[in-house]
């Protein structure tokens, strides 16, 4: 076992992690631990763009952007956080440009902007061009540019290091951050990283679902680790389903496709969004579009042999526009479905996409241990965190924005805190629980195979906790999950080696996924209303009286030694915008 000492440890090298590293790296001794080579992070899959009210192509301002974000999030957004994000968005985009990001350009040579779902002019009047983009590879360019800037800044990376535990110690009865425990994939060695501050930027957990746009590696490790430490998770029931996943596969086709003029049609060719959102039609927020699509299929207007998807129609767009502005998704459709978007309709259906909830933080990205108190030295940013700027439903492009704005803030805050404090002592044997986790699985003689449990979990989540939910389906899912968690105790891995043991790590990741799926379902059961990404058929309207509040879930162990999920609530921070009905 090796021990390393740093000022700041960043867990994750996606957009949020590397943006943080650029700030903290210049201020304090920083190391980034990542289970993937940085450029493999899923930020690279983001396509459509990153919004900021640059007003490069038409009139716009950050206040409208704030309003859209809040309304898009069905008023569950913490408005102070949304203001921070939308105001700092402009600098966030310009920062990236200065680092070299190759944005698409206007004829004047400025950063070009295009329309995106839910982004409007003057509080909902009409769609506005706000999304800064680089073809349909904006995330790829962000990830590459940030990695390149990290190389330039000489940031230290520990690649293929899986963080498996957070080390907290107690100071005057309160938890304080002492470091993390990591597992080195290449050697199987356990490392302790002592640090004054730790930033979690470990991404989402889309793999709880079967049909998802998320990577195989998005298993919510960071969120799971924090959860197992007894810290709360916020708004876990709000999971976003993106309308346009390739049918049956989940591979994403960016909303930018509709921003460029793409239209959704049902089996008979009808532009059905006209019925659901008469003003901005196909560019309504994702939750609404996804529900409309499921509705069409349920009412028998779905297309295909099983009538189980709808179409994305780009055929009326000029070929050059498709090839130059949407080259990658065009290729995805061609490669994976054998469909050419230039001349054919593309079968699409909602796909699990983005976790609005996660590790609760304040606007300085400090991780909360209850409604009011932060854990000293602990920070979170990006998809694993919940600030909450996305509320009940994230607007397209606001995540790339989130990771840049709050990644930067996390880097600054963590480094400044580190520079103002001393290293916290390690508790006794901080590596023990990780070693027993790893060795338990490696030497286990159980009969269960991880893949079967994973498949069953994803199956039940897709069936019961997807776009539409009811008390009955959620209970079904919860029962299944609890059964699966029992089976998980009997899991064993076939690879007993120490080098590159991905069999072992996938089993560990599955453990995190099961925990998070359960929190998601329990939180969803208790939210008896329909809001944003959380649609309860048995409670089809928003209930501001009872549920205009964030869910806070805590892990507790009952008297019989059973793990239970306890729910509590946190008020929404409202500054300027009172909740209104959400119409587009």
């Amino acid at each position: 076992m090796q021990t390393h000492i740093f000022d700041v440890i960043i867990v994750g090298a996606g957009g949020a992690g590397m943006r943080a590293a650029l700030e903290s790296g210049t201020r304090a001794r920083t190391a980034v631990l990542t289970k993937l080579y940085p450029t493999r992070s899923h930020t690279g899959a983001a396509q459509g763009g990153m919004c900021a009210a640059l007003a490069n192509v038409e009139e716009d301002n950050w206040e409208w952007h704030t309003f859209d974000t809040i309304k898009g999030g069905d008023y569950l957004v913490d408005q102070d956080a949304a203001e921070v994000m939308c105001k700092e968005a402009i600098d966030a985009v310009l920062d990236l440009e200065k680092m070299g990001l190759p944005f698409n350009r206007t004829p004047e040579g400025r950063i070009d902007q295009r329309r995106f779902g839910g982004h409007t002019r003057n509080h909902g009047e009409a769609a506005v061009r706000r999304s800064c983009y680089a073809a349909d590879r904006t995330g790829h360019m962000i990830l590459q540019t940030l990695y390149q800037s990290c190389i330039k800044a000489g940031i230290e990376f520990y690649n293929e290091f899986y963080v498996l535990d957070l080390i907290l110690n107690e100071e005057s009865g309160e938890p304080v951050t002492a470091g993390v425990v990591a597992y080195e994939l290449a050697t199987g060695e356990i490392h302790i990283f002592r640090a004054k501050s730790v930033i979690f930027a470990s991404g989402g957990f889309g793999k709880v679902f079967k049909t998802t746009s998320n990577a195989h590696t998005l298993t919510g490790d960071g969120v799971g680790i924090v959860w197992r430490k007894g810290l709360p998770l916020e708004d876990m029931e709000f999971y976003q389903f993106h309308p346009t996943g390739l049918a049956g596969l989940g591979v994403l086709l960016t909303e930018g496709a509709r921003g460029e003029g793409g239209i959704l049609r049902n089996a008979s060719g009808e532009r059905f969004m006209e019925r659901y959102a008469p003003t901005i039609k196909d560019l309504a927020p994702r939750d609404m579009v996804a529900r409309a699509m499921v509705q069409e299929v349920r009412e028998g207007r779905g297309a295909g042999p099983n009538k189980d998807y709808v179409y994305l129609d780009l055929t009326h767009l000029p070929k050059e526009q498709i090839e130059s502005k949407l080259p990658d998704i065009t290729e995805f459709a061609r490669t994976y479905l054998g469909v050419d978007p230039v001349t054919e309709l593309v079968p699409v259906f909602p796909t699990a996409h983005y976790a609005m909830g996660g590790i609760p933080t304040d606007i300085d990205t400090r991780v909360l241990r209850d409604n009011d108190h932060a854990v000293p030295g602990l920070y979170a940013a990006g998809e694993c965190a919940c600030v909450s700027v996305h509320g009940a439903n994230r607007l397209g492009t606001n995540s790339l924005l989130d990771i840049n704005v709050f990644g930067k803030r996390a880097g600054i805050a963590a480094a400044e805190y580190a520079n103002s404090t001393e290293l916290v002592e390690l508790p006794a044997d901080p590596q023990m629980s990780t070693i027993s986790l790893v060795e338990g699985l490696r030497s286990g003689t159980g009969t269960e195979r991880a893949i079967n449990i994973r498949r069953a979990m994803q199956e039940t989540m897709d069936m019961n906790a997807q776009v539409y939910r009811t008390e009955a389906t959620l209970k079904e899912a919860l029962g299944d999950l609890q059964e699966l968690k029992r089976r998980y105790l009997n899991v064993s891995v076939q690879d007993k080696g120490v080098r590159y043991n991905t069999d072992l790590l996938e089993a560990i990741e599955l453990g995190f996924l099961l925990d998070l799926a359960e929190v998601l379902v329990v939180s969803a059961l208790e939210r008896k209303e329909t809001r944003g990404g959380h649609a309860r058929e048995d409670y089809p309207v928003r209930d501001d009286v009872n549920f205009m509040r964030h869910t806070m879930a805590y892990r507790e162990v009952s008297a019989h030694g059973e793990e239970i999920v306890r729910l509590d609530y946190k008020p929404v921070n409202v500054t300027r915008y009172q909740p209104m009905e959400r119409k587009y």
Partner: protein
Amino acid sequence: MTAVIEVPVIDIPVATDVTFRVRRYLPEIDEEPHWEDYTVALFPTDRVLTALEKIKGDIDGTLTFRRSCGHGICGSDAMRINGRNRLACKTLVKDLDIKKPITVEAIKGLPLEKDLVVDMDPFFAAYRAVMPFLLPEGHEPTKERLQSAEERARFDDTTKCILCACCTTSCPVYWTDGAYFGPAAIVAAHRFIFDSRDAGAEQRLEILNEKEGVWRCRTTFNCTDACPRGIEVTKAIQEVKQALIFRRV
């Protein structure tokens, strides 16, 4: 508004048994790599990556490979499939001849660590060595730097690189001379050399003028053929060579 539309016909496919011949190497057990056959049921539209997941999940958990995004965007799963470098997640069963076993082995030219996993550090070291970051000149502007659409188009192709190493590990020169920077590093350099906002072209060209730089390329086009992003790699290398000869970017 009801448009008259062509409804694409999508056949409902059937699963067939496909055999994969995988070159296995477990460093703690095997002295030498060896081949092993596995048969899994797959749909024509399944990816080779799906097959590997199935083999790992249902048959042999020790099978080790890297993967993440599953749709050709993260660059994790470069491997040699039927003798050519490709991404497992972008290679569909229907595009392979399944009458014979499909061979799968690690990319070559980088140290083999386990099964399909190689040590990527030398690859990334070459990438870092060409200064793959913007080196602008003058004062930071308050707003964005201006760049025309034409200037932007000049280096568009090489911005698509996902650092999968398909190209570098298909290059016959790289197989024998690990000191060669390799096509991926040259692609990265190209991306900045031809960026109108960058002023570091001179330095990067100097680096690529080294003994192990662009002159090592013998225009074998394996890199271009292998690139899953469709980057015209050899063309990029040609442009760098010309920039060096004519000292003009």
